[in-house]
């Protein structure tokens, strides 16, 4: 009874509280994954605060919908998310709890990065027997500087709509970053094009590097997961070993948040090198350096073959 009285009293007090300021001095941007957060930081410059909901080494498919994230969303002016259902397991529940009209679908503060990107692997039909496929297309584009460029430009415009005073600066930074990224994309692609066809073959753990491989002109000859999201069985791994040996694959690529037992064994049996990629930039590494670093890491292994 006492408890109920407390709740009622608290509710009454709440109505007396003055409304919280609708706009802080600077825009508050919340990005789901750190790679997109870094992109946003560079477009926003000093004119907005950017925070990421997840850590760089966290698998964005399987994050917990922690209520603490509701607070960040409740106060945000713009939500930058990957889209294509990458965050479907946790983000919708948080957005609904956040009670923030600015972030609802269709609002100016709801920024679906995937809308700016040329999508790859859009399935013609969807059947769960195919594994955990994404009906809108493969969502793992955030490592592709071509996609990054398009998102940076879009973000420049979107931030400008929310804060017209700094619109020109947002657009300018977005355009500059996009230019740098497109230049980087061209340089790296050229560098990889000089590799022999055999050196351009790789194996991966999950179907999450299709944009990266498409950018660098690499060919995915084998996948540790038999279907997206389904862990491998021994028979499948035996087939993968055969595929890697036949193609003399130099590198087995995977993000840090995927299991390594099967990959270690396959690497050991085939002589391929397991390259564990950082899934997000650390310590505010800029986006260009981060993406260039990924390409350099892969190039070092492929060219050494």
């Amino acid at each position: 009874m006492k408890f109920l009285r407390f709740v009622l009293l608290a509710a009454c007090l709440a109505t007396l509280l003055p409304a919280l300021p609708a706009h802080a001095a600077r825009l508050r941007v919340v990005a789901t994954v750190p790679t997109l957060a870094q992109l946003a930081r560079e477009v926003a410059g000093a004119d907005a605060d950017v925070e990421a909901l997840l850590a760089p080494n966290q698998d964005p498919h399987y994050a917990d919908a922690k209520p603490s994230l509701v607070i960040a969303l409740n106060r945000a002016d713009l939500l930058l998310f990957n889209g294509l259902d990458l965050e479907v397991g946790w983000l919708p529940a948080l957005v609904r709890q956040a009670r923030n009209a600015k972030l609802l679908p269709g609002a100016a503060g709801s920024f679906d990065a995937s809308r700016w990107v040329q999508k790859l692997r859009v399935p013609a039909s969807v059947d769960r027997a195919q594994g955990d496929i994404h009906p809108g297309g493969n969502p793992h584009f955030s490592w592709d500087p071509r996609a990054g460029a398009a998102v940076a430009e879009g973000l420049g415009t979107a931030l400008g709509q929310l804060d017209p005073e700094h619109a020109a600066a947002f657009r300018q930074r977005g355009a500059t970053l996009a230019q740098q990224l497109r230049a980087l994309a061209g340089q790296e692609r050229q560098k990889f094009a000089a590799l022999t066809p055999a050196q351009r073959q790789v194996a991966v753990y999950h179907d999450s590097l299709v944009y990266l491989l498409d950018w660098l002109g690499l060919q995915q000859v084998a996948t540790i997961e038999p279907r997206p999201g389904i862990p491998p069985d021994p028979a499948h791994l035996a087939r993968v070993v055969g595929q890697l040996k036949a193609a003399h694959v130099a590198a087995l690529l995977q993000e840090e948040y995927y299991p390594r037992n099967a990959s270690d064994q396959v690497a050991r049996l085939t002589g391929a090198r397991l390259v564990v990629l950082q899934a997000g930039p650390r310590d505010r590494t800029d986006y260009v350096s981060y993406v260039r670093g990924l390409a350099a890491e892969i190039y070092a292994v492929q060219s050494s073959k």
Partner: protein
Amino acid sequence: MRNFWIVALLATAVAARSADAAPAADLAGEPTPAGLSAEDQAALSAAAAADQPAVAPPSSGPSPSANPAISLLFGGSAAAFSRPDPPQMGGHDATGSGFNLHYLELFAESNVDPYFHFQTSIAIGQEGVELEEVFADTLALPGNLHVKAGKFLSDFGRANPTHPHVWSFADQPLLLGKFFGPDGNRAVGAQVGWLLPLPWFAEAKLAAQQAENPCCNRSMLGDTPRPVQAADDLQYTGSLRTFAPLSDDWSLFLGASAQLGPNPHVLGLGTQIAGGDLYLRWRPIADPERRSVSLQVEHARRQRDVGGQSLVDQAGYAHVVAKVALRWEVGWRSEWATGVAGDPLDPDWTSLRTRHAAQATFYPSHFARIRLQVSRDMPGWLNEPVYGALLMVESVVGAHGSHGY
């Protein structure tokens, strides 16, 4: 009448198709009224054809649809109990040895417009169809408020507001069965939620609901009809929850709940239930095997005025669930529920009842799980413990929304 509608629909469809086809027939057929020569017409046809893309443009995803996200959830088991009438209390529990259908739920949800969200859950059992939940709730009210109206599970504790497909054990906790009913506590009503303006997550909720509902409000009016004439003919549920992210890997969620309502024996709010719950979770966020260990404890105390007599009893559970590998989970649950003499709802339940269960679960994918559970139940009114073992299969198909923490 039904045939009439079918014929009408078919006729409409045929008419629509003919209308679509009409312009094409004109282009391919006789010279148009404009009197174009055959050559000019051929040139126009060629130009029109050239403007058509050679192949369909790449799709940007599934065709957008305004349909709600619809999913079907199923749970069934093969069970063996040491007595023919095991004292299971949940409406979705296995009721005896042999094969059991635990649930088939049709779940649908969608935003209604920029202001409201809609959700429903319909349980289809062997005995019929039951509307479990249907409600509309607000998306973004000012003042960090949230309003929900319809038929919904009360926000009392952690287990009550959830559906069986997210439970960590194959049966409903005794706490829910004894204090609320076979389907937990739910009824038609309205709820206001408020996200407190604090730097951390804290949410208060207050709901008023109908107190009469045999499946779900047994400590209230249950199946006793009493028209609502005053405020104390309804049941009220209040809760306060707060979340502490202790570190990236550790989280603590605490809650306190209270429920007041009428019972058939006295006038006024004769039933009071108060409870507390704790959820402590360790999940290293960067672990590739997605391992985690969660401790959940819930305890509640119920007091009922039953015509001059005050009946007090308590119930709760504690469980530990460990995700030990990518596809494997194990768990242990201990439950307790005291009894009181003269209880009109459970006359035999006069002493402490404890139940322990252990489970091991295999997840072939995120959309299915196979669970083996064994349990030992010691109801005070039986001479010997009841042992149970069951192998349960659960699956979800369709688009199913994400769950809260």
